[in-house]
Every structure is written in structure tokens, then in C-alpha cells.
């Protein structure tokens, strides 16, 4: 009993703004992660300024050159500069990552909110589907989806979104269930507020923290799923420089030009690492109990 009260107070204290950022960035990992994410955004936004060549600049005589003074990371089978392609590729990864996760977030949150708030049959059905989707190899469905319906950015985004929505649904549902019984929610009910208002103005904002944490951890997952799909030949059509596509076409040349397959993988690992580090630190700072 004591512990519960103590935790409640701690929670209230922890959500006070001034302390939060200081604590977050006292964690070295958080700083590192944030920097990586920042760099990633800068690279994506300023790609034309950063990349020395265009991503589709074919220069056949320069094909399959190793890293040299003109092409820091070497060239691919068409003589395109790998460094430039990786830089532009960040746009695709970020775009797919954010939009797909965004869609998941909206759908998952709505479903989770409904399930958590109303309980009963609604909960039973929604959480039934969600639980299954959560433990299901949804990536198989995603593969089936794109393989059958064709390669395009839209299909890719929807397929990737398939993978993350259940995580949000479960999280929000859990949050709502625990919030549902809190006093201030009971108060709003007594006051006669509409359900919609309660959900959107009171319950959701209090769930934001874990949602944000989940987002920073789902984005890297989405990036990896996108690259897996691209790797299987299901990504955005050429000459789009998605990191997964570059690795996929690079694997045919792995004996003579391994840099084509290796560098995008490194870049991706770095990006994903950055998000994961930041997300971890965020979670640790907000509430150490949120590990699930």
C-alpha cells in the first residue's frame, strides 16, 4: 500500500518539466542517441547539399570502384556514388519509418483506447485481435501484401504499418485500464463529460509519455522491416536508394565489391542504434517501470 502511494507521488513529481530534460540528457546514451537522430534528420533534409552526386547519376565507366578520393564509399554497379545514395536513402527510411509508425500509432491508439475505456465486449474482441497480431509473424503478411499487390511506396508503408499497430493498441489499452479507475477520471465522469472528451482531453495526454517512448522504439523497427522488404525485392522501385535495396543489389557483388552491401548496413545499424539509445534513455527517465 505504502509503495503504491509512494509511486503515485513519485510519478507526479517526475512529470514536472524542469527536472525532466536535465535528467534525460545527463544520460550519456541519450545524448549520443539524440545526436545521431539529429544528424540523420539533417542528412535527410539537406541531402542535395550534403551528397556530392545525385542518387541516380549513372556513370557506367566508374562502376564498382572501391572507396577512393572521388567516391568516399565507392560506387555501385552503375557507377553511382554509394555515399550519395546512402544520404538520399535516409529520406526513404525516415519517410517510411515515420509515416508507417504514424499510421500504426493512430490506428493502434484508437483501438487501444476503445478497448481500455469501454471494456467488456469491445475489449474482448479488440484485445483478442491485438494479442494475436502482437505475437504473430506479421512480417509474413507484410511480405504477402507487397508481393501480391506490387511494389510502391504506398504499399510498402501500409505493409510496415501492419507490423507496429498492435504494440500501440496493447500499450494504450493498458494505460487506459489503469487510468480508468483513477480519481480524476471518476471526477470527469461525475461532471458528465462526454466519452470523447474524456478520452482525448484527459486520458490520452496522460498516456503520451509511454506512447512517445514506444514511438522512438518502433521507428527503428519500422526501418528494419522496410529494409527487409526491400532486401526481398519488395521495396520502392529503382532507382530509389532505400538502404535495403542497395544492400539487396549489393549482395550479388559481395565477392568483388563488398562495400555496396556493407556500408548501407552500417549506416542503418547506426541510425537504428541512435533511436534505440534515445528511446531507452527516454523510457528510463520517464518511468523505469515501463519496460515491456
Amino acid at each position, binding site marked *: 500500500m505504502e509503495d503504491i502511494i509512494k509511486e503515485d507521488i513519485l510519478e507526479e513529481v517526475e512529470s514536472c518539466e524542469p527536472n525532466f530534460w536535465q535528467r534525460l540528457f545527463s544520460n550519456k546514451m541519450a545524448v549520443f542517441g539524440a545526436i545521431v537522430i539529429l544528424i540523420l534528420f539533417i542528412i535527410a533534409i539537406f541531402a542535395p547539399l550534403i551528397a556530392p552526386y545525385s542518387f541516380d547519376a549513372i556513370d557506367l565507366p566508374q562502376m564498382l570502384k572501391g572507396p577512393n578520393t572521388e567516391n568516399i564509399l565507392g560506387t555501385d554497379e552503375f557507377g553511382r556514388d554509394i555515399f550519395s545514395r546512402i544520404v538520399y536513402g535516409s529520406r526513404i527510411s525516415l519517410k517510411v519509418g515515420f509515416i508507417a509508425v504514424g499510421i500504426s500509432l493512430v490506428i493502434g491508439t484508437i483501438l487501444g483506447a476503445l478497448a481500455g475505456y469501454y471494456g467488456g465486449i469491445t475489449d474482448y474482441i479488440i484485445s483478442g485481435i491485438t494479442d494475436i497480431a502482437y505475437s504473430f509473424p506479421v512480417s509474413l503478411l507484410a511480405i504477402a501484401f507487397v508481393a501480391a499487390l506490387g511494389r510502391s511506396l504506398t504499399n510498402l508503408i501500409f505493409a510496415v504499418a501492419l507490423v507496429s499497430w498492435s504494440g500501440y493498441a496493447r500499450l494504450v489499452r493498458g494505460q487506459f485500464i489503469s487510468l480508468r479507475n483513477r480519481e480524476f477520471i471518476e471526477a470527469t465522469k461525475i461532471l458528465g463529460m462526454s466519452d470523447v472528451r474524456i478520452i482525448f482531453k484527459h486520458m490520452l495526454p496522460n498516456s503520451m509519455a509511454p506512447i512517445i517512448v514506444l514511438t522512438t522504439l518502433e521507428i527503428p523497427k519500422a526501418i528494419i522491416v522496410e529494409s527487409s522488404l526491400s532486401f526481398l525485392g519488395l521495396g520502392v522501385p529503382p532507382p530509389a536508394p532505400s538502404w535495403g535495396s542497395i544492400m539487396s543489389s549489393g*549482395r550479388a557483388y559481395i565477392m568483388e565489391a563488398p562495400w555496396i552491401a556493407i556500408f548501407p548496413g552500417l549506416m542503418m545499424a*547506426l541510425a537504428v542504434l541512435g533511436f534505440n539509445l534515445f528511446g531507452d534513455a527516454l523510457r528510463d527517465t520517464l518511468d523505469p517501470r515501463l519496460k515491456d
Partner: protein
Amino acid sequence: MLKYIIKKLLLMIPVLLGLTIIVFLILHLAPGDPVHKVVGPNATPEVYENVKRSMGLDRPLIIQYFDYLGNLLKGDLGSSILQHRPVADIVMERFPITIGLGVRALLLSFLIAVPVGIIAAVNRNKLLDYFAMTFALVGISMPTFWFGMLLLYFFAYKLRLFPISGYGTWKHLMLPVITMGLTDAAVIARMMRSSMLEVIGQDYIRTARAKGLKEKVVTNKHALKNALIPVITLLGMRMGWIVGGSVTLEIIFSIPGLGRTMVDSIFSRDYPVVQGSILILAASVMISNLIADILYAVVDPRIRY
């Protein structure tokens, strides 16, 4: 307990049914059909129609679906359009390979992750901890297929320690199992560590310490048992991830598993094979979740059914 298992098994049925509908729709609404693969690129329209009719693919979708469903309920998974033999045969050949890979990878990851997680937790914030967790972070950040490619390149091609492709001996399994096992271990290690940390900080451990038991005993017996509980539920979930990830690895290491078969069949529109493989793969994931649930119940003294 038995009731719980039966309930879960029964719940699987509508799920798998729903799955067949979704997959059926996706496949048939997609452009293209398997007839092209059968007749080849140089067939006349008459031959094409003839073959299509003989496969029953010219019937309305609803009829095709219920026909499939009817057979399914009788235990007949249908026949592969391209290979002219029962889907059940194909699945029985390839499924053990995929599952064998998955289970071994899971076991390996567990064997690595549990000790690593515990050591990290016990040595919290010391060098060992940072070391272990850094590796774990790298592990979850790397795309599995990229890691697999690297291992193939260095250990199979350059160093000739393992075969490059094929399937049959334990050597063929080593690289894919290690690839999957290590990346999965990263996830589980982190979970293990945080679970361990949480448990160590709890009251009953303090009580045990207060009782004067030796530090090591405290760690091993009490903390471990309780820390393992949430990690065990992870087992079932990881199976889903592993089955999904096996597709790319089966391609890279040229292993004739069910994942790769499924993807190939999607491309060649061999509907029955796609349906069959997704069903079996999904069912196996659900069953492993069930097993994990049961294990959880067995291991956690607080749970009573």
C-alpha cells in the same frame, strides 16, 4: 489448467480461419495467376484457358474459397498448382527445417542471453554491464539479414569454415542458427537484465538478505526464478519474430525451408502452397505462444488455474 489450454486451442481456430480469408483475398485480388508459370511464356490463349479451367481457377472467388475451406476442414491442404503434388507433402518436407532452425536459434539465444543478462544486472553500471549492453544494443540494431550476409562472407566464403549453401549436416545449420541466435540473444539479454534488476530491488529479496543467506544463494535461487518469469513469456513471442526472420535467412543461406517456399509461392501465385505454409507457420507460432504461457504458469507460483 487443461481448460485453459483447450480454450486457447479453440481460440486458434477462428484466428486461423480469418487468416485464410485474408490471405485468400490478398492473393486473388492481386494481379496475375499461376497459370502463366505452368504454361510458360509461349502459350496460346486456348492452351492458357484450357489449363486455367482444369485448375478450377475460372470459377467465382466465393466458390473457390469455400471449396478450399471444405477441403481444409477435411484435413486436405490441397495440391500445389505448379508441382502437382499435395501441399501437405511440401509442408511436411520444409516445415521441420524452418522450425528446427528456429528452435535451435531460440535455444542458443537463451543459453547466451540469460547468463549475459544476469551478469550484467549483478554488475550493474560497472564495465561488464556496459560491455554486455553495448553488444546487445548493437545486436538489436543490426538487420538480421545483413548480419547473416557478413557471416556468410567471412566464415563460409573467406575462411571456408562452413558450407556456403545447402542443407543436410549440422555444419549447414551453424551459420543461420548463429545469426538468428545472436540477434535474438540481444533482445532477450536486455530483457533478462531489466527483469533481474527489478527483482533484485524487490522486498522479498531484501528479506532474504536480511535472513542472512549468502549473497550468491540469494541471487541464484530467489532472484533468478522470479526474474526468469517474464523472460519465459518472451519465448513464445520471439518465435514469431524468428519465423518471420527465417525467410531472409533461408534465402541467403540457400536453405529449403518453408519461409522461402512461401515467398516463392507468392510470386508464382501458387495459392494452395501459400495458404498452407502461412497456416502452418502461424499455427506453430501460436502453439509456441501457448507453450510459453504454460511454462509461465508452471514456473510462476503465483498463478493458479
